[in-house]
């Protein structure tokens, strides 16, 4: 098993773990963390792929991608946390499930 394959496998495993948590954990914080774990898995795969060109210098492009990905993930995590906090203030709970689907809208203000 090459190093790339190992990274890919571990990354995939992390991705699935995150996916599982996202779906089963009702708490919003858990869900956000789960997404972070999933994204770490994806980055693992990307970093591993950088080795595929062989030689001492790995392919820089995947690294650039991972960096971009981290930026995206960090900002979206921040946004998600802010949103979760706001939901907590509005509803008194930070859990989320089908029961929350309410279809009413009246334009406030």
């Amino acid at each position, binding site marked *: 098993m090459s190093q790339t394959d190992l990274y890919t496998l571990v990354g995939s495993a992390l991705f699935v773990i995150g*996916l*599982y948590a*996202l*779906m*089963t954990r*009702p708490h919003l914080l858990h869900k956000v963390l789960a997404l972070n774990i999933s994204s770490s898995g994806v980055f693992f795969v990307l970093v591993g792929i950088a080795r595929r060109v062989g030689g001492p210098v790995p392919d820089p492009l995947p690294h650039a991608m991972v960096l971009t990905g981290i930026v995206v993930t960090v900002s979206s995590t921040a946004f998600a946390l802010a949103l979760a906090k706001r939901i907590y203030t509005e509803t008194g709970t930070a859990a*989320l*499930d*089908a029961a929350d*689907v309410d279809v009413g809208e009246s334009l406030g203000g």
Partner: protein
Amino acid sequence: MVTILPAWMALAAALVPLLVAAGCALPATRDVARRMLVFAALPALAAAVLVPDGTSQIDWLFVGTLVDFDATGRAFLALSGVIWTAAALYAAAHPPQRPTWFSGWFALAMAGNLALCCVTDPASFYTFFAMMALPAYALVAHEGDRSAGRAYMAFTVVGEALLVCGFFVVGAAAFGIELGPVLGSVGIGLLLAAFGIKIGAFGLHGWMPVSYAAAPTAAAAALAGSMSKAGVLGLLRFLPGGEREGVAFGAVVMAFGVAAAFYGAIVGVMQTKPKVVLAYSSISQFGLITIALGAGLAEPVVWLLAVTAATVYAVHHGLAKAALFIGEDIAARTTRRWPAVVGLALPAVALAGAPLTSGAVAKLVLKEATGLAPGAWHGALETLLPVTAVGTTLLMARFLYLVATRKAPDAPGTRATAPGMLGAGSWMLLLAAVTATLWVWPSADARYAVEKSLTAHYLWLAVWPILLGCIAAVAVWAAGTMTRRFAGAIPPADMYAPVLRLADGAAERRDRSVRETPAPQAVPTPVAGRAGSALLDRAGVFEIGFLAWATAASAAGALTVLLLLLAARG
């Protein structure tokens, strides 16, 4: 000047009554139009006398109209002109209730009747035939006899439908379309049935007695004297006489004719109302005409003779029958009845075929035609025709008896006790026509027949059935029990009486139920049925399941696995 009159000018003259009808409909011209009614048929009468023979095509009218003046059409036009004029005069003398209303329909039917004598293409003939037959409903139902009106309308509508179907076949042939043998026969059968209704052929006569009895006298005279003759004209114009297609029908037609001739006489003498007796007399007389036509169909070379016979007989019968109807009414209106009964005797003996009357000549021509009937028919008719004359004599005797013995009007003040100038004039016109027409008939055939009828052989042939009939009548009268037992045994509508009763009952029930049923109220219904909404609710429950994270995750996972598997396989 007259000779340059195109034939369609004559058609226009026949349609003058249409203007009168329109005038009756408009409030402003109502009174004038009503007074013009007695003159409405005169232009047509003039045309019948003055317009020369010839054909002209009016392309723009209907689906193309063929106006044709020939001896046959001229005879019927003249007959109709005289009868409608007399009837209009009588209507003016004794106006029915709502006279303008009556006059309008009267004029409309008149227009149709006069115009149909001038055209020979099926579409136009049908047009005018309908213009005559349908408005006549208003005349029949004018005195409020709904049952009679219903019978008239039912038979007329069915007749019109049969006629139009028959005319499809005739029209198709005129278009040059090849008809198969079956279709050709169907066409002839349809025409026979349709016109058969109009002339009260045996089995198709159900409307005639009730309608004649229900209609005001002027209308009955027009109906019996002229409108029903249109059926004869139709048969003359459109049956394939003289051609092979018709031969197969000859025997059937003759058989129906014989049946009608006897049936009319037998049922007629049992009637208790004079007008109904006259109606059955018509059925019987049309039977004779039918026999002639049947003979013409069966033997193509006889056809032209049959046409002449039917024409002459139709003219004779029309005038006589109209005179009988009007005389009957005059007799009913007056307390001094004997002059009227004497006057009535003239057309009555004419119908019976007494020598020196038109009847004798008509019967002679008829005999000439049937004498050439093929095979066994020839002999049978030789025997049967005189017997029908006995029947007619009996019928006329019964009629005169009923007129003479009828009770006087209940309240003489309400009805005129004397006929008055117009009414008497109308009758006199008809009586004169009955007497004179065949003697002035402008054709060599007729003159020949008139002369022949004066030979001793034919005089005797004409006289003995009448004598026999008179003796029988006197015998029956003397044996009063027979009269009492059979008088009224058969209702006026005879075999159709149960049907008419059923129809009357049904109409009554429908009216009652309509009166008693409230207007239907709109009932709002739910958007979806119960089953539908239960299914929708179930769908809603499922959807909540789809909205759950766990379901979504499973679905995403399953989809991933599925696609990966597909990828691996690919």
